[in-house]
């Protein structure tokens, strides 16, 4: 037995005996109705599981430092990755916690349509990347996607892509950090500063030591954790719901109560509800789904987002790069099991104590995290419902691992693009490899520091978060248009590529601004917030629901409720209306009030509120011409072809238009400008790039065979869940 084996066994036994086992003393983690208390409570064994994860990732970082001794090692993991590692890393870089929690929330909001992000919204693009684009990326030996633009179109396009990418990458990394801290605070009560600093220092250490290799190792580890930490939820949820068919039937029945604005929408199918805009909860038709999501957004993300592509272009040979991508495609198709099914389970099995469906609300809803949990809480709520001590620790570790590997992915991509596509071409062309390696290590730390700065900025400007997320989304679609024309059309010129890319970015941003602009003014939903400690009584109807609220004493704040006095109710009692004409139903929120001597909280809508004489009032009228959190239906009808379009539908159509603009501008400008000589396009453009013969391989290693298998599986899944 070698020394390592002794050490390993000793560590294992030590953990078993030292771990506190009195787990029953821990408060059970239960889904609760309309509460702002912490959703999950960890037992000591859960904490041991979380801490062990941090120890292992740091250990991996220190261990891998000696293997990152050159620029090629640090930035490209030595270009020696096997197909399986490249594939797992490729898919894990995308499977962050924002992704799993976010798409579970999407499935709760949009039903089974959310699964399209993993089917038509991913697989055709990944297959295209593997079979068509990978040979070009691989043969030209680029370090990055902006690097390819530099070779194909020249330094202007490379600089535009490189600077935009580095800026957006660290901003998104910071947004992810902020989201993690906020989620851990809401779910577990952890201090936000501690969450931000512990996670970012850990990421900074392991990425700056081991570079991409470290990030990839941790992504592979995260893949296992996220699957093993989350897979129990769909298994137990389906058992709890009485089987698959009953789960779907209950979800559809409850959806009408949970989402009353789309009562007639079909939540349980992939395609049969896409015949028109009002038969599905997303407000989209099949054209938008196929060409918006399936073509523009999906191809942009999977084929040109460097964070993704970097994972597979570092494989040890072209065949491994292609097979790694295909492994990623196959695994991607399975992700709906741990993402879409929990969203549907949220509709079916999350119940209040009285057996009624639990209503979750969007983050933008004023009731969010006060009286109601949000869509984003659907996965943690299910974790709380089904996972006991130990398993809960594994689930929370998977969540933290997902956040951290997402940050690490962004930071390693930032370091690569900054060093090779901004620093080297613009500032220091002839430095040594050692110099670039040092630059990469410092950039990793700098990237983390900028991310931390962004995270803290979001404490004060949290509405930027939404803007940041769509900004990167609109950046990669034009990038795809520019790259694909460069690969497939040798006549595309440097000027065409640059202007097509730039104008499409500007058009994307203009469309985003347009759908959030309200020339006639946007008035948020009327709201009455009853202040802390106010004394309140109710009148209830025959069904036991609140029919009237009487505020006996205390303070009340109103927004967009006409007829409210400026300071205090004087003379006779005042009744606030349940709705305001042309604005909407009045929301009443009471986060902490006294009802019959006890402290309570509630949130209701369209209920009259009586303010007794002496109640203090603060009244506000809000009317905006630009509201990033709201969509103007009169404008979305031009962008997304329907005034019923929901945010996701608007994003898909915006992606389609920006791709179209990019292609048209690139082609038109190219026809009037001078192309590069063919000699300079060798190994960059189809027809001028000889695909190397990698020799015979066993049938089971043939990329074309596996691409066909994955495509057939994709068709089969779409037919089964039509």
């Amino acid at each position: 037995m070698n020394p390592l084996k002794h050490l390993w066994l000793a560590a294992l036994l030590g953990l078993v005996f030292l771990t506190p086992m009195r787990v029953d003393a821990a408060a059970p983690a239960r889904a609760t109705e309309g509460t702002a208390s912490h959703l999950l409570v960890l037992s000591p064994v859960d904490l041991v599981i979380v801490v062990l994860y941090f120890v292992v990732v740091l250990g991996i970082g220190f261990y891998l430092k000696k293997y990152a001794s050159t620029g090629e090692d640090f930035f490209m993991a030595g270009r020696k990755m096997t197909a399986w590692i490249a594939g797992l890393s490729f898919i894990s870089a995308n499977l962050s916690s924002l992704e799993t929690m976010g798409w579970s929330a999407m499935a709760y909001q949009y039903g089974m349509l959310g699964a399209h992000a993993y089917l038509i919204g991913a697989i055709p693009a990944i297959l295209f990347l593997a079979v068509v684009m990978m040979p070009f990326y691989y043969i030209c030996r680029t370090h990055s996607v902006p690097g390819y633009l530099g070779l194909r179109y020249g330094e202007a396009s490379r600089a535009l892509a490189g600077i935009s990418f580095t800026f957006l990458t660290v901003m998104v990394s910071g947004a992810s950090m902020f989201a993690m801290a906020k989620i851990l605070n809401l779910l577990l009560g952890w201090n936000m500063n501690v969450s931000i600093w512990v996670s970012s220092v850990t990421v900074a250490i392991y990425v700056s030591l081991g570079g991409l290799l470290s990030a990839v190792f941790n992504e592979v580890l995260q893949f296992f954790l996220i699957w093993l930490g989350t897979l129990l939820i769909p298994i137990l949820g389906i058992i709890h719901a009485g089987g698959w068919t009953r789960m779907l039937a209950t979800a559809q029945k409850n959806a009408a109560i949970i989402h009353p604005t789309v009562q007639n929408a079909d939540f349980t199918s992939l395609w049969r509800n896409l015949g028109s805009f009002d038969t599905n909860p997303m407000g989209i038709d099949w054209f938008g789904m196929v060409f918006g999501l399936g073509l523009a957004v999906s191809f942009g993300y999977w084929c040109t987002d460097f964070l993704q592509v970097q994972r597979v272009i570092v494989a040890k040979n072209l065949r491994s790069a292609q097979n790694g991508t295909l492994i990623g495609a196959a695994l991607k198709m399975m992700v709906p099991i741990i993402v879409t099914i929990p969203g549907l389970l949220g509709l079916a099995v999350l119940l209040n104590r009285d057996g009624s469906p639990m209503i979750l609300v969007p983050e933008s809803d004023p009731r969010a995290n006060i009286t109601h949990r949000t869509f984003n809480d659907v996965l943690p709520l299910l974790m709380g419902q089904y996972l006991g001590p130990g398993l809960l620790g594994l689930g929370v570790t998977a969540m933290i691992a997902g956040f951290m590997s997402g940050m690490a992915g962004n930071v390693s991509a930032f370091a690569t693009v900054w060093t090779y596509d901004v620093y080297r071409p613009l500032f220091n062309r002839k430095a040594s490899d050692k110099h670039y390696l040092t630059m990469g290590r410092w950039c990793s730390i700098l990237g983390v520091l900028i991310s931390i700065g962004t995270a803290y900025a979001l404490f004060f400007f949290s509405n930027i978060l939404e803007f940041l997320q769509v900004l990167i989304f609109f950046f990669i679609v034009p990038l795809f248009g520019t790259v694909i024309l460069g690969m497939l059309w040798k006549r595309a010129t440097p000027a065409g590529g640059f202007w097509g890319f730039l104008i499409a970015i500007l058009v994307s941003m203009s469309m985003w601004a347009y759908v959030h602009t309200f020339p006639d003014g946007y008035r948020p939903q009327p709201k009455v917030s009853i202040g802390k400690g106010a004394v309140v009584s109710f009148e209830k109807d025959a069904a036991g629901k609140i029919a009237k609220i009487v505020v006996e004493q205390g303070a009340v704040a109103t927004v967009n409720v006409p007829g409210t006095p400026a300071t205090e109710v004087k003379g006779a009692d005042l009744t606030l209306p349940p709705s305001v004409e042309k604005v909407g139903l009045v929301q009443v929120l009471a986060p902490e009030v006294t009802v019959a001597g006890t402290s309570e909280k509630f949130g209701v809508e369209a209920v009259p509120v009586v303010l007794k004489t002496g109640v203090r009032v603060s009244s506000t009228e809000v009317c905006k011409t630009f509201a990033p959190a709201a969509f103007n239906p009169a404008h979305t009808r031009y962008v997304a072809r329907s005034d019923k379009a929901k945010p996701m539908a608007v994003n898909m159509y915006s992606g389609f238009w920006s791709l179209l603009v990019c292609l048209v501008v690139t082609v038109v400008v190219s026809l009037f400008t001078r192309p590069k000589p063919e000699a300079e396009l060798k190994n960059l453009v189809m027809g001028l790039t000889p695909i190397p013969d990698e020799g015979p391989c066993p049938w089971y290693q043939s990329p074309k065979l596996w691409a066909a298998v994955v495509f057939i599986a994709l068709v089969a899944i779409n037919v089964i869940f039509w």
Partner: protein
Amino acid sequence: MHHEHQIPIWFFVGSLLTVYGVLILGVGIYNLVHPPEHPVALASLHMDVWWGILLLLIGSLYVVKYWPSKGETAR
């Protein structure tokens, strides 16, 4: 993974899963003997025991197969 003498990533994965398996199985057995006062939904299925065993099996498989003394060639 790919350098000679480098410990494969699969070994790290296996080690962590094995330890997690032991911990979760231990908690599961404890809960079997001393059922908690406020069990989670479907606690009667004792998923912690089964999941602990699964993690232990997957983890052990990777640990044994990718033990560093055998892994001195490129993987």
